[in-house]
C-alpha cells in the first residue's frame, strides 16, 4: 500500500511543477484549477485506499526509504515514506480536507482574476505535497524540511491578496512568530542528532537529554499549533482567503505541531516534565482563546480563536501521557472546523462582510449553509452523537485518568465557553431580524455546498471510527458517555448553548457581560505585550548592539585605515627624491647594519 501512499506526494508535486513552469496554463485560471482539483481528488482516493491497507497499531510500519545524506559509507539521514498507524489517518484527513477545500475554492474563488486563480491552486497543490511529505516522513530531518515547506505555503496563501497591506503584514507576522518558535525546533533536531547520531523519532537512554530535546521540539509545536503566548499569528492569518483558513489554519497545518508530538511520541514519553508543562499550556490556551473568541465581531476571528482553543485541548490531552485522545481530537476537529470555516466562507460569500453585527436572519436566505454551520457548531460544542462529543470527552477522560485536575477544570470551563460562543455566532448570523445585507444574500452554488456536505458527513460520523486510530485499548464510542467529565462537559455545553441563546437569540440577560473587559480582550492584550516587549526590550538592546557595532567594531577597522593613512603621510617626507638624501639614508642604513653586526645582533 506504500505505493498508494506516495500518490498524495507525487501527483500534486507534478501538478505544482506543471503549473509553476507552464505559465500560460497557470494564467488560464479555471483549467489550472481543475487540474489541481483532479490531482487533489485522486490523492484523496489513493490516501483512503492506502489507509484501508495500512498497518494498525502494533504491526510493523510499511516504508520505502532512500539514502539521503551519506558520510563515510554511513547513512546519516534517509528520505522516503513511512506508512503506519500514526501516519495513515493523518494522511486521509489532510488529503480529504484538501480535496474538499479545493473543490469549494472553485466556487469561492471564481471571481478572482485568472492568473491569481492559477497561482492559488498551484500553492494549494504545493501544500498537499508538503503536508503529505511531512506526515509520511520517516525521520525528523524530512519532517523538518516539510514543516518549513508548509510554513512557506502558509505565508504565500495568507498573503494571497498581496495588494492588501494587512494581508502582507499578517503573512509576515505568521512567518516571524512561527520562525521564532522554530528556533527551538531546529535546536531540538540538532540536539537529537548530537545525542543519538541520527534523526529517528525516538531516543533511548539518557532521560535528561530526552527532556531537553522534547522541550525544544515543543517550542516549535507552540508556534505552529498556536499555543499561548505564541498564538498571536493565527487570528491575523484570517487575512487569507477563507478556504485557506479552513485547510491550513484550522484543519491541517496548525495541527502539524500536535502531529509532531504524536509522531515523536517516544521522545516526549521519556520527558514527564515536558508532558506536565504541555497539559498546563494546552489548558490555559484552551481557556484564554475561548474567552477571546467570546468577544470577537469577525466571524472568522471567532473560528480562529476557537481553533486555538481546540488545539489547546489537543496539547493538554497529549500531556497526559497518551497520544490517542489528542490525535483523535485532531482528526475530528479537522473535519468540523473545516466545515465551519467553509460554511463561514459561504456566509461571507453571501453577505459580503465578515462582521457578525452586519449579519442576522440569514437562516431564511441560506438554509443549507445555516444547517451545515449549525451542525459544525454542535459538533464543536460537543453535542452527541456528533464527532466532537466523543473526542472532547476522550480528552477530558484522559485528563481525569492522569489526575490533572487543574487542567481538567480549565478544559471543562472552556467546553462551556465553546458552546456559548458558537451559539452566539449562530444567533448573530442566522437568527434574529434580517439586516440590510442579509436581505440581498443568496445561497452558494452547489460546487461550494457539496464539499461542505462531505465534511458535514465526516464531522457527524468520525466519532465512530476510533478503531482505526492506533489505539491500543479497544475504545467503543458509548464508552465515553458514562464518564463523569463527559457528562459534566455535556451539561456545561448545553448550559452554554441555553445561556447564549437567551442572550443573543432572545435578547434577554442584558446584564451578562462586562463591556470594558470585552473591549480590553478585543484589543489584543497579548499582541500588546509583544509590541511593548519590542519597544521597551528589543529596541534599546538593538541600540546598544548598534552602538557597539558602530563605535567598537567599526572603530577598530577604521583605526587601521587611519593608522595607514597618517603613517604614510609621515613617511612620504623621507621620499624627497633628492639623490644625496637617498645616498645619505643608504650610508646610514649600512652603518646601522654594521653596528648591529658589531654588537652581535646577527648570529
Amino acid at each position, binding site marked *: 500500500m506504500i505505493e498508494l501512499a506516495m500518490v498524495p506526494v507525487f501527483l500534486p508535486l507534478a501538478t505544482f511543477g506543471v503549473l509553476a513552469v507552464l505559465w500560460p496554463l497557470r494564467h488560464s485560471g479555471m483549467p489550472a484549477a481543475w487540474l489541481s482539483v483532479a490531482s487533489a481528488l485522486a490523492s484523496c482516493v489513493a490516501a483512503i485506499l492506502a489507509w484501508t491497507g495500512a498497518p494498525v497499531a502494533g504491526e510493523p510500519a510499511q516504508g520505502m526509504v532512500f539514502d539521503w545524506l551519506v558520510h563515510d559509507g554511513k547513512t546519516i539521514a534517509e528520505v522516503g515514506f513511512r506508512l503506519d498507524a500514526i501516519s495513515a489517518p493523518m494522511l486521509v484527513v489532510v488529503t480529504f480536507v484538501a480535496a474538499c477545500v479545493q473543490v469549494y475554492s472553485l466556487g469561492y474563488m471564481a471571481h478572482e482574476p485568472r492568473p491569481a486563480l492559477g497561482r492559488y491552486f498551484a500553492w494549494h497543490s504545493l501544500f498537499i505535497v508538503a503536508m503529505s511529505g511531512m506526515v509520511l516522513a520517516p525521520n525528523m530531518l524530512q519532517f523538518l524540511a516539510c514543516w518549513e515547506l508548509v510554513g512557506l505555503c502558509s505565508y504565500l496563501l495568507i498573503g494571497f491578496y498581496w495588494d492588501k497591506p494587512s494581508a502582507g503584514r499578517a503573512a509576515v507576522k505568521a512567518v516571524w512568530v512561527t520562525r521564532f518558535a522554530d528556533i527551538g525546533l531546529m535546536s531540538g533536531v540538532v540536539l537529537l542528532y548530537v545525542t543519538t547520531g541520527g534523526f529517528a523519532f525516538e531516543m533511548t537512554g539518557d532521560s535528561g537529554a530526552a527532556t531537553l530535546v522534547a522541550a525544544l521540539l515543543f517550542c516549535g509545536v507552540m508556534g505552529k499549533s498556536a499555543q499561548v503566548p505564541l498564538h498571536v499569528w493565527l487570528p491575523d492569518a484570517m487575512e487569507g482567503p477563507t478556504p485557506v483558513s479552513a485547510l491550513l489554519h484550522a484543519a491541517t497545518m496548525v495541527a502539524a505541531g500536535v502531529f509532531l508530538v504524536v509522531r515523536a511520541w517516544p521522545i516526549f514519553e521519556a520527558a514527564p516534565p515536558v508532558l506536565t508543562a504541555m497539559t498546563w499550556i494546552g489548558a490555559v490556551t484552551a481557556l484564554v482563546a475561548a474567552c477571546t473568541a467570546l468577544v470577537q465581531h469577525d466571524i472568522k476571528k471567532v473560528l480562529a480563536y476557537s481553533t486555538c482553543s481546540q488545539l489547546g485541548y489537543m496539547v493538554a490531552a497529549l500531556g497526559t501521557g497518551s497520544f490517542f485522545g489528542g490525535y483523535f481530537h485532531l482528526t475530528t476537529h479537522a473535519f468540523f472546523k473545516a466545515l465551519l470555516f467553509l460554511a463561514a466562507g459561504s456566509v461571507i460569500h453571501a453577505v459580503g462582510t465578515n462582521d457578525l453585527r452586519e449579519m442576522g436572519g440569514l437562516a431564511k436566505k441560506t438554509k443549507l449553509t445555516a444547517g451545515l454551520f449549525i451542525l459544525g457548531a454542535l459538533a464543536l460544542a460537543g453535542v452527541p452523537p456528533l464527532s466532537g462529543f466523543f473526542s472532547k470527552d476522550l480528552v477530558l477522560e484522559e485528563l481525569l485518568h492522569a489526575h490533572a485536575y487543574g487542567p481538567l477544570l480549565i478544559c471543562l470551563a472552556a467546553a462551556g465557553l465553546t458552546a456559548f460562543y458558537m451559539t452566539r455566532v449562530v444567533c448573530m448570523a442566522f437568527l434574529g431580524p434580517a439586516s440590510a445585507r442579509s436581505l440581498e444574500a443568496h445561497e452558494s452554488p452547489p460546487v461550494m455546498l457539496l464539499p461542505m456536505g462531505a465534511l458535514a458527513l465526516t464531522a457527524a460520523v468520525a466519532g465512530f471510527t476510533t478503531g482505526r486510530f492506533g489505539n491500543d485499548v479497544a475504545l467503543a464510542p458509548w464508552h465515553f458517555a458514562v464518564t463523569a467529565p463527559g457528562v459534566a462537559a455535556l451539561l456545561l455545553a448545553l448550559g452554554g448553548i441555553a445561556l447564549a441563546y437567551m442572550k443573543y437569540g432572545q435578547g434577554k440577560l442584558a446584564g451578562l457581560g462586562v463591556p470594558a473587559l470585552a473591549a480590553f480582550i478585543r484589543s489584543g492584550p497579548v499582541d500588546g505585550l509583544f509590541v511593548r516587549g519590542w519597544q521597551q526590550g528589543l529596541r534599546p538592546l538593538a541600540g546598544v548592539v548598534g552602538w557597539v557595532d558602530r563605535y567598537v567594531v567599526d572603530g577598530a577597522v577604521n583605526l587601521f585605515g587611519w593608522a595607514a593613512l597618517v603613517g604614510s603621510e609621515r613617511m612620504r617626507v623621507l621620499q*624627497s627624491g*633628492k639623490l644625496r638624501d637617498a645616498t645619505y639614508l643608504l650610508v646610514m642604513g649600512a652603518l646601522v647594519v654594521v653596528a648591529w653586526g658589531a654588537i652581535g645582533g646577527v648570529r
Partner: protein
Amino acid sequence: MNGPPLEAWLALSAALFAVGLFGVLTRKNLVAILLGVELMANAANLNMVALGHFRGTPFGQAAALFSIALTVAEVVVGLAIVVLLARTHKSVDADAPSEMQG
C-alpha cells in the same frame, strides 16, 4: 717580507674609503660624486690586494682585477646617466632631478 704591515694597508684603505664617502655625501656635482664612488671602489680593491698578499694567495689580485673591470663598466653607465641628466635638466647638480619625490 719587507715593507709596511697589513694594518697600515688596511688603514690606508679605510682612509681612502672615508675620503670617497665624504666626497659622495658632500659634493653637489654629479661628476664629483662619481669620483667619490671611484675612490671607494679603489679602497676596496686595495683591501683585496693587501689581504691577498699577506695571506700568500693570488686570489686577492685576481678579485681586484675583476673589480677594476666592473668599475670601468659602472663608470660608463654612471657617466652616461650624468650626460642624460645634464641634457634633460641643463645641469649636473645632484639636487636638480626631483621627479622621484614622494
